[in-house]
């Protein structure tokens, strides 16, 4: 009897429930705004609007926390981390002709689902300083969460593409509407730089993705379906794999972002509100790495092996060059944005080694970067909320006034550098170990990046935190309050625990990564064996 209940519980569409839960909250907020009391002129009174704003904040918090609870429940109750294939699979007919609505998770995606639901409430909490158009803001974040969860859960290429591209829309609006002030001259026309950043973000990623769309269509025709597990088991001809791989690369390389198509990222980060930066760095970038692991490696193994040196080269350039660029930045957010590009370089390098250490290291690095870079952007947000500038030179000697903040910032700076004991170290170490197996020179150049990351991160820390407190504006600056402390501590806990004891996460990755590697090597062996 109990078994039956358990079985019927497990067969419910949990992933769809989780994915679409935030949208329900968004609908609630929209409904409240629509039903607002209006005066004769059709305008909403200030106190009524204030009430709606509070409702919007609370509903958003409630639903993001709810989604987190549901995801943890799904993980604990139904997820079997010893099983390598897709779990919690649900399927419904949709377009016909091989396209259906299909969801499921495996060891590669489940932790990103959890990361997303974990980061989201933090983003909502970090949005306290947002003052205008709060209901719309909260709706955008809730829709964003649905779209991101959809990306990680989708088991059909068309469904994946819908969610993947759909996530551009809310991010575009978040950067453009709630981004920072300032203008930029472009071709003689003065335009707000947040608009420039938003449009650049949109068009860059859109261009990358439409090429992937054509590849998806080709694969659909070849295999007769867009079912991801089926496609992963399909052997595409070696000649076609090259083109398909490049098309997918165009999309994921922009998303990741890899050098030289990373230039949208610093703009987007600088202009986005704090929570937007957090979500961008912690989750959106991971969609690129996830895409490489879900599609490029399993579906086009031959092309992946062929293009691996190309990826290594781009990754090394990303690691070394963007680290050098980060050294020269005057803007804190830009510095962290460039350091993100460098850290993503480790991920791509690790993934395409095709070794267990490399791939697990890449996955771990993405996870850890989610906590650490998210936290660093929150740290910058803490300062920005108080002083309203991101210029490094505007700060100095903060340790005298903000000891608690100094400790937190130091911890995450060390995490960014990759100090042993913090999760950043594990990811960098594993990816370099993977790269070393392939070619020791790659690991050598990547190690230069580690040194450089110490240089720029410590420079940032020294200039902001140490020295004498000479700037008058900074004299009255307050230390982190309870809300900020709680957010940062939550992230610190994960970064620390995973840094000291990474096994739980690696154990979740392992079965799916093993399966991926065995399929990958089998595909390569079959080519090598052929005359």
């Amino acid at each position, binding site marked *: 009897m109990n078994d039956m209940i358990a079985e019927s519980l497990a067969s419910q569409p949990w992933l769809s429930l989780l994915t679409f839960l935030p949208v329900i909250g968004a609908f609630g907020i929209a409904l409240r705004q629509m039903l607002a009391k209006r005066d004769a002129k059709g305008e909403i009174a200030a106190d009524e609007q204030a009430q709606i704003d509070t409702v919007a904040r609370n509903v958003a918090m409630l639903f993001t926390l709810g989604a987190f609870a549901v995801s943890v429940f799904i993980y604990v109750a139904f997820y079997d981390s010893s099983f390598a294939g897709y779990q919690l699979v649900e399927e419904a007919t949709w377009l016909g002709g091989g396209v259906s609505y299909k969801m499921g998770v495996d060891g590669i995606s489940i932790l990103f689902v959890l990361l997303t639901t974990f980061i989201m409430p933090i983003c909502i909490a970090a949005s306290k300083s947002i003052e205008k158009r709060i209901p719309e803001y909260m709706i955008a974040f809730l829709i964003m969460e649905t779209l991101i969860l959809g990306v990680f859960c989708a088991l059909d290429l*068309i469904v994946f593409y819908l969610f993947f591209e759909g996530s551009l829309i809310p991010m575009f609006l978040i950067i453009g509407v709630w981004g920072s002030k300032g203008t930029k001259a472009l071709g003689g026309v003065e335009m707000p730089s947040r*608009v420039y950043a938003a449009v650049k973000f949109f068009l860059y990623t859109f261009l990358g993705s439409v090429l992937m769309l054509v590849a998806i*269509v080709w694969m659909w*025709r070849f295999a007769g379906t867009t079912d991801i597990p089926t496609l992963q088991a399909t052997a595409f001809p070696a000649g076609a794999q090259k083109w398909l791989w490049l098309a997918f690369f165009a999309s994921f390389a922009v998303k990741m972002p890899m050098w030289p198509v990373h230039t949208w990222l610093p703009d987007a980060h600088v202009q986005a509100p704090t929570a937007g930066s957090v979500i961008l760095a912690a989750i959106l970038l991971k969609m690129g790495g996830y895409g490489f692991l879900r599609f490029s490696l399993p579906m086009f193994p031959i092309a992946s092996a062929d293009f691996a040196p190309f990826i290594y080269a781009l990754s090394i350039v990303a690691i070394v060059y963007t680290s050098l660029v980060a050294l020269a930045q005057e803007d804190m957010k830009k510095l962290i944005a460039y350091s993100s590009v460098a850290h993503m370089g480790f991920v791509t390098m690790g993934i395409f080694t095709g070794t267990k250490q490399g791939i697990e290291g890449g996955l771990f690095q993405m996870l850890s970067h989610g906590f650490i870079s998210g936290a660093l952007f929150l740290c910058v947000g803490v300062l920005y909320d108080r002083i309203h500038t991101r210029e490094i030179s505007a700060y100095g000697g903060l340790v005298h006034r903000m000891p608690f903040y100094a400790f937190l910032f130091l911890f995450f700076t060390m995490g960014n550098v990759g100090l042993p004991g913090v999760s950043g170290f594990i990811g960098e170490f594993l990816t370099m170990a993977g790269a070393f197996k392939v070619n020791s020179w790659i690991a050598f150049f990547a190690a230069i990046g580690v040194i450089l990351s110490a240089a720029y991160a410590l420079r940032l820390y020294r200039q902001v935190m140490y020295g004498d407190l000479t700037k008058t504006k900074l004299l009255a600056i307050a230390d982190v309050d309870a809300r900020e402390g709680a957010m940062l501590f939550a992230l610190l806990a994960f970064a620390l625990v995973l840094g000291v004891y990474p096994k739980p996460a690696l154990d979740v990755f392992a079965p799916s990564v093993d399966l991926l590697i065995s399929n990958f090597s089998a595909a390569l062996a079959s080519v090598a064996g052929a005359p």
Partner: protein
Amino acid sequence: MSFSETLFWTIPELVLAVGGMALLIAGVFLGDRSSRLISTLSICLLLAALLVVVALQGGPAQNLFGGSFRIDAYSSFMKVLVLASAAFAILMSDKYLAGEQLGRFEYPVLIVLAALGMSLMVSANDLIALYMGVETQSLALYILAAFNRDSRRSTEAGLKYFVLGALSSCLLLYGASLVYGFTGTTQFDAIARAVSGEANIGVVIGLVFLISGLAFKVSAAPFHMWAPDVYEGAPTPVTAFFAAAPKLAAMAMFARALVTPFPEIVADWRPIIAVLSVASMAVGAFSAIAQSNIKRLMAYSSIGHMGFALIGLAAGDERGVGSVLIYMTIYVVMTIGAFACILLMRRRGGMTEAIDDLSGLTKTNMGLALILSILLFSLAGVPPTVGFFGKLFVFQAAVDAGLVWLAIVGAVLSVVSAFYYLRIIWLMWFNEPAPAFEREVGSRLGLTAAGSAALVFPIMLIFMGPLIAAARAAAASLF
């Protein structure tokens, strides 16, 4: 087939023709006071014809008048769309025409007669029948373009449309006569039998002229020059009508006139269509960027969309035509919605057409801004809106037919065209507000706009499966 049977299958056209005449007579007797009544009756007439089309569909294909007209799943599918969008055109015009002192009873009657012409175009299975349909439609459209006869812009639009339309009709006729000269018949199936095997150069030249004439009608580049001026000059509800129903009918006719008579020489006409397609997408994408008038922008946007639809036609097979039908269905829903929004751009003192007037619309009228944003994202083909599926299926058809390059070009140009849709969206969301428009909660226009936005996302998204099945079945009846 007996005469009474023939009449039975043409009931929709008879309803439109007889009803249109009756309304014209009624209008003459009742005068302009009756324009509202005539409008309502015209909508009823169109809906009645639509219901008959639905009731008659489902059987095997019927050849009428010695094979000149064909009633099949394809014609039924397109007629439903054409008649529905004509009805919406009348529905959306009322308020505007009354406001501009244009409330004359001829307006709805002209739309009914144009719908009759389109209905003939969709069913035409013979070059002469095709020409008859085109002319029936065009004569009504010329008058509609110049409907605001006291406005210089409107009369100019009408005249331009007439002159260029006559030119395109000439090309069409010339092509038709060449094809007739070399095959000895004007009936599509007979032409197909005559040109089987190797293509006669005379037929190919005739075909080129035929395609040029048809490309004029769908405003595909490089035969698009008339579209922006006519769109801008014609009264806005007329523009809304032009962008929807005639495009559907012309595209339907285009596909049938290529696929039924010339299936054997696909290799000859495919490159022409592919070039038209690329040119239209490029013109649509690049020229729209610099526009400041929203009606002109919509003209270029529709040129671009015709380019995308032509990708499917370039594929030239069953799946390709199916994708054209899916594309046109989605296109017409988006277009009607977008024009409903444009018609809602009304301030005290009249309509406005400047794109800049949409600045900060999210702050002054969130509902309208949201609806327009959804429609614009869909026009740009950004998932998860349904506009994406239109592009997806034409790309699929192109890839299936081995035209991967065309799909790639289309994909890249869709990014370029995304820019100008994004520009409107960022004006609405990011900029400081311009003076507010008049609020019209619950008006016909508002409901039309909201309804099409709801269709675009998410209703059609969920019911995509049945739509695809219907379009594929319709396309299958051509082959």
